[in-house]
């Protein structure tokens, strides 16, 4: 029999890492095979993507520092990077997990010690942090070890210390957050946590993007690199000296004595574990109070007066009411809003950050691109970005999936399925229009594109975005994902949205390659692609409105 704590821990981990591996019975199904293969490819691509970025940075840094005999600085840099990354991720993940407090509150009725509940949650956060530290430190160890012929001990100390790095940030995050959330009623609301978590997460992603862009620029310049690592007032080497986990790590890998390295590693793991245990014990009771007093949504007291009722309950056309329902249900769910409509704002911000971070290089590149921008690229690039932004919200490709069991209610009402479909399409097109404006006009102005080209790009983007939006809605009307518990399953974990976003990227890349290889008059491409998009839009539209109603009638969550 397992101890209650181990069972609790196992349940907490399973609830986060709920990976369903196909059973023997399921494997022969082509759909299951394709899905499993798709997920595997996605995991490998993601891992390879981040691995490649860090590897290139480590190699660049090592090669820049090696002529001065200072290549060990890259290990300090990797240790500090891993420490900062796990700290930020630990903080944001710990904060986000408070949103599942209503579900966790059930554990309060079971014979668990308060410290166990917090420890199980902390262990789950650790399970997310550790692979990040392991990846950053592992790649740095690989680059440094191979280039300098390091012994096996070096790898062992690097990786063992990588496991220790997330422990102190984890303890500090909960030691800060538990009293904070406990003291603030405002923070004990699911919506608040989701919005703060979402925005902080986005800021983190933007910061990480900024960091990568600036580092790439610095690695090319040894003077800048040296200033970052040791010469400036607030440098990486100093951080490694005053942050104990980083100091222990550097002591372990920089010491020739095995005993000293072992002692430093043990001290690193011991310090982290001791702080984590102390946090769980000290703040366990407060944590359970948070679970007990966590509100999902704030209720609003107060009657609707007679006069107010005439306005509030004014009659509207059914279609307007349907569109309004779509808008409210999407934009009031933080998970949907931040990963849907907000992307239209987020992507231009990321682009702007890249431009600012690599300002000089971008300016030089733009100078070289100027003759190209005077040709068809002048309208094809803004149109492409507009089309991509318009389809990045996933509103159309998750339209029915988001409704899930609410489909039963909708279908029992006297509503024509075509009206439900049309309302979903209008909702998606409203945001597509904003995406087109941001993408085409924003990029057009940024690249100083001629007005005529911006106008052509606008028309092309409208045709392309409408066709792809209808295509996304067709996919989600015929193959909706209607069974789920977590709303994220309908959006971020929905194969339909992944397919549409990756498909749009693939299509735009393909059209880009085609445009580079064909020799047409400047606006010939606009005519060709515009005609294709128009025909596709009409085709998808006919399919959607002729066959979509039958599909809605057959939908069974």
């Amino acid at each position: 029999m397992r101890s209650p704590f181990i069972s609790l821990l196992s349940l907490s981990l399973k609830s986060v890492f709920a990976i369903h591996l196909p059973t023997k019975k399921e494997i022969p199904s082509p759909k299951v095979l394709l899905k499993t293969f798709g997920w595997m490819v996605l995991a490998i691509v993601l891992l390879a993507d981040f691995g490649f970025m860090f590897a290139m940075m480590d190699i660049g840094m090592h090669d820049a520092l090696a002529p001065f005999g200072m290549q060990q600085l890259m290990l300090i840099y990797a240790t500090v990077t891993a420490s900062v990354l796990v700290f930020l991720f630990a903080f944001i993940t710990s904060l986000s997990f408070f949103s599942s407090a209503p579900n966790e509150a059930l554990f309060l009725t079971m014979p668990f010690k308060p410290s166990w509940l917090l420890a199980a949650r902390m262990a789950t956060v650790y399970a997310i942090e550790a692979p990040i530290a392991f990846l950053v430190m592992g790649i740095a160890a690989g680059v440094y070890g191979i280039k300098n012929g390091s012994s096996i001990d070096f790898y062992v100390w690097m990786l063992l210390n990588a496991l220790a790095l997330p422990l102190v940030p984890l303890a500090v995050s909960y030691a800060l957050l538990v009293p904070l959330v406990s003291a603030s009623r405002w923070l004990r609301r699911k919506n608040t946590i989701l919005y703060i978590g979402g925005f902080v997460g986005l800021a983190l992603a933007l910061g990480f993007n900024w960091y990568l862009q600036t580092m790439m620029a610095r690695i090319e310049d040894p003077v800048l690199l040296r200033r970052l690592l040791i010469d400036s007032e607030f440098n990486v080497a100093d951080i490694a000296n005053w942050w104990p986990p980083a100091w222990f790590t550097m002591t372990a890998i920089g010491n020739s004595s095995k005993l000293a390295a072992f002692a430093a590693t043990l001290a690193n793991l011991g310090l982290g574990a001791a702080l984590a245990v102390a946090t769980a014990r000290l703040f366990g009771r407060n944590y359970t109070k948070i679970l007990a007093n966590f509100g999902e949504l704030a209720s609003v007291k107060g009657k609707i007066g007679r006069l107010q009722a005439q306005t509030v309950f004014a009659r509207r056309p059914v279609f307007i009411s349907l569109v309004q329902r779509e808008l409210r249900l999407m934009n009031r769910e933080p998970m949907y809003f931040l990963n849907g409509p907000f992307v239209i704002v987020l992507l231009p911000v990321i682009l702007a950050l890249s431009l600012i971070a690599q300002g000089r290089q971008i300016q030089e590149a733009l100078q070289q691109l100027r003759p190209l921008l005077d040709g068809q690229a002048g309208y094809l690039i803004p149109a492409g970005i507009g089309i991509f932004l318009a389809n990045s919200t996933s509103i159309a490709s998750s339209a029915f999936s988001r409704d899930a069991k609410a489909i039963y209610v909708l279908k029992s009402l006297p509503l024509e399925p075509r009206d439900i479909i049309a309302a979903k399409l209008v909702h998606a097109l409203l945001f597509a229009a904003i995406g087109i404006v941001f993408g085409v006009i924003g990029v057009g102005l940024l690249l100083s594109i001629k007005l005529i080209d911006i106008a052509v790009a606008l028309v092309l983007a409208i045709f392309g975005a409408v066709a792809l939006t209808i295509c996304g809605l067709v996919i989600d009307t015929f193959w909706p994902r209607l069974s789920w518990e977590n709303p994220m399953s309908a959006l971020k974990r929905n194969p339909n949205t992944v397919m549409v976003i990756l498909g749009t990227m693939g299509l735009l890349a393909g059209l880009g390659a085609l445009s580079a290889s064909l020799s047409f008059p400047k606006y010939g491409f606009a005519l060709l692609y515009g005609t294709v998009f128009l025909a596709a839009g009409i085709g998808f539209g006919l399919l959607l409105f002729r066959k979509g109603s039958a599909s809605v009638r057959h939908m069974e969550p």
Partner: protein
Amino acid sequence: MIELTNISKTYAKSGTKAVDSLSLRIPDGVIFGFLGPNGAGKTTTIRIMTGAIEADSGSVLIDGIDLAKEPMEAKRRFGLVPDTPDLFSRLKAYEYLNFIADVYGVSASDRVTVIEELAARFELSDALKSPIGSMSRGMRMKLNLIASLIHKPHNWILDEPIVGLDPHAAFALKELMRTHAANGGTVFFSTHVMEVAERICDKLAIINKGRLVFTGDLEGLRELRESRGRLSGRVPLAGAGDGAAREADMAATESTDQGGESLEALFLALVEDGEHAPEEVSKP
């Protein structure tokens, strides 16, 4: 009036036959209870009769209108209280009511009147500005009850409406059901709460494993039990092997002492019998 004729439904995903050749006639002016154990097919039947899912075969007539042929007209003639009141949790209560009123084309003044009256009756007036997600299950159920009546439907269909309601609201609901039926309307509701069914139903149907095992009134059910017991040579409710039958036995013993079998005892026994003799039986 609602008529179901030979309805069958098998879920494609699981291959489960949820409803098997079910026929029901729910006349006007009655409260009709639809009873059955978990997974018996009650919710599936309600979803079919409200057009939320399509039957594999059979027909549904709402006030004589074929749901498959004229879905819009048929749907306007009933109000539904679904079994999952937690949908649309991001909408505010009044926004949801407004949406439903728009769908049914209810005028502004009519919707204000109905909402004011029903919100007062269910003590929900103070919560109309709240997001549905912030409400308790009982409050959400009350909201769905108001929404289902906003267009004053002739037929009122309720899926497990008593679950989560406080005693005051449950009483108000029962009163509303009685008034609706007394005014010539149809009330069709599913429930697990036998006591409620026993007290307010004029007629009832029992479904088990997708098949109708009884339809009629309480007296008819008692007669059926007795005749089955005589036919099978078994003493009614005695000698049953499993827990359900033992519970039924105990309940029957208690209620017989008071002068007759309770609905719960009859229900359990009939469901138990249904395992052996699933043929449909109808009693007027």
